[in-house]
């Protein structure tokens, strides 16, 4: 009798365990987690949301940061953009992040990838970004890449901005980049041409800008370092 009672108790335990396991599986399936981004709910219409979710899933698999992709989708939704335009923008950013990660390396931080994508869109090439990584192998690239994009946004020609950022890359600290950008922007605001402002401020950096001219490349007329053929 005691044996039968123990058997029933065991079966009851097993039954509860199986029930809990099934409940857990159902909960996991119902939780909008592994593949669902709750912030997109109610912000994007269903077809576009599904497409963006697919892009996010692919980005996760590829090891890309999804936060900037979500931000881009939310930006489009906030601005009332057409769903197709939102999907297109997210896709484009995904491609840019992929390119930047190739240039910066798989260990690049999300902030570096985001800044690199901005630089890429501003006109830098993948080779330029790879060169920046090479010159600042031990430094974060967020500020340098951002300054590159900001200089272009301020009106500096893209190749000139790339050349300047690469020229000071080996020796400049992030603070030097920030000061450089601020000074160029100030000169432009006071009426200087963007290229002239950049040239003057680059020369003002002195030694910071001298190192890249040595070695395997030379600075072109715009200050952009050119590789030997």
């Amino acid at each position, binding site marked *: 009798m005691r044996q039968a009672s123990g058997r029933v108790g065991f079966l*009851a335990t097993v039954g*509860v365990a199986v029930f809990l396991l099934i409940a857990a599986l159902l909960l996991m399936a119902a939780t909008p987690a592994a593949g669902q*981004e709750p912030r997109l709910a109610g912000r994007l219409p269903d077809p576009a949301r599904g497409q963006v979710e697919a892009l996010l899933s692919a980005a996760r698999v590829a090891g890309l940061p999804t*936060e900037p992709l979500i931000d881009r989708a939310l930006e489009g939704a906030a601005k009332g953009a057409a769903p197709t335009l939102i999907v297109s923008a997210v896709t484009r950013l995904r491609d840019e992040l992929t390119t930047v990660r190739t240039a910066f390396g798989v260990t690049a*931080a999300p902030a570096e990838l985001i*800044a690199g994508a901005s630089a890429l869109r501003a006109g830098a090439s993948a080779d330029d970004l790879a060169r920046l990584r090479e010159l600042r192998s031990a430094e*974060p690239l967020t*500020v340098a890449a951002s300054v590159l994009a*900001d200089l272009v*946004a301020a009106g500096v020609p893209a190749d000139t901005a790339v050349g300047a950022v690469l020229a000071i890359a080996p020796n400049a600290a992030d603070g030097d980049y920030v000061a450089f950008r601020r000074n160029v922007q100030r000169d432009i605001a006071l009426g200087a041409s963007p290229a002239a402002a950049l040239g003057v401020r680059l020369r003002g950096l002195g030694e910071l800008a001298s190192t890249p001219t040595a070695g395997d490349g030379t600075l072109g007329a715009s200050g952009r370092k050119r590789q030997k053929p």
Partner: protein
Amino acid sequence: MTESRDPLDSLIETLKEPVRLRPDLTRRVMAAIADDPAMATEHKPVRWWRREWTIRVTPVRLLATAAGLAGLVVTGQFLFRPAVKPASSVAGSEASNRLTQFVLVAPEAAAVTLVGDFNDWNVGATPLVRSVGDGVWSVTVPLAPGRYRYAFVVNGTVWRGDPEAPGLEDDFGQPNSVVTIGGA
């Protein structure tokens, strides 16, 4: 003359009477068959799955089960939820955040809000405060190192870039500005 009853006839009569079976005989026989390995027609694991269980539920067990389910829900949501960006910290710890002030001069505005990568582009999340007596609107936001796109929304409908910050190409036909917080 009395005819004595033959014991054999008596036995025959008894055997002719209908047999009264116990109501649970069938169940007991089938259970005995099922328990007898020699009589098993199914594999033991199969029989185990098809066996009827009797589970006794007590209030304590019920409460324990409910608590277990609640624990699973909480754990599941914690483990499998997507990373949601806190409004005050986009990336990195709060210690690395830097207070960043956003200012817009808009004397004609009745309301100005700040939207950007740091607040999920939520138009109502970060309102600017108007200084008394002038048209200067401002708000201070803690930002972790990184590069952020943002814009102002005036009166809930008009999108404006920050005239004091670099502009940025926008995918959606509206002005954008960008701010970079160093350190990353």
